[in-house]
């Protein structure tokens, strides 16, 4: 069955430190991949997406993600986090023939001052 896994439920990093949030997918073929962010009390906002081509994808708010086919991963990174990055992050995937997107269970990011 198709699935998206985010192994980390909660991560705490210090302000200014680097960040990597993990995402693994299980699909027959490479799906389209997304990262969304949900700030407290708000809906989800797209950070970036990967459809094909360059495996390093740049997004908004200084985020990037790297697609690694061999590891079935699409990890989100940021070189230096800010207090405003505290939020919940969702990885999601959809294949080209499917009619619905599958979301991971989310990773909550806390920032240590």
């Amino acid at each position, binding site marked *: 069955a198709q699935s998206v896994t985010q192994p980390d*439920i909660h991560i705490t990093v210090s302000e200014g430190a680097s960040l990597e949030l993990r995402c693994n997918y299980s699909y027959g073929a490479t799906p*389209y991949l*997304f990262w*969304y962010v949900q700030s407290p*009390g*708000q*809906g*989800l*906002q*797209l950070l970036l*997406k990967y*459809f094909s081509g360059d495996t390093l994808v740049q997004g908004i708010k200084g985020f990037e993600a790297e697609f690694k086919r061999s590891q079935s991963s699409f990890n989100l990174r940021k070189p230096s986090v800010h207090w405003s990055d505290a939020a919940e992050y*969702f990885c999601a995937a*959809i294949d*080209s023939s499917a*009619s*619905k*997107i599958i*979301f*991971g*269970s*989310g990773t909550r990011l806390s920032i240590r001052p």
Partner: protein
Amino acid sequence: DVKVTQSSRYLVKRTGEKVFLECVQDMDHENMFWYRQDPGLGLRLIYFSYDVKMKEKGDIPEGYSVSREKKERFSLILESASTNQTSMYLCASSSNLVNEQFFGPGTRLTVL
């Protein structure tokens, strides 16, 4: 600025009540979605619609129905609310099923 709005941010209902959650988008999108969000479970799709009067079941449609009479409006209906339907409900829309979804702010529903 593109927008998806939901009729209520917070809602408290009693068991057995009929509940309507409304969602409106101003982007002329074909596709609209209803999700529920629960801690540790991420977002789970309840129903989606790819055109007016068209609907498809998602992963957890039991206890819910939907209505899409106009392109911009997608309603989620709980025919007889139960306590296990206490959750955050998120509406989204997209121009294409594989494209970015735009989300509303969510409705936190409590069923007592």
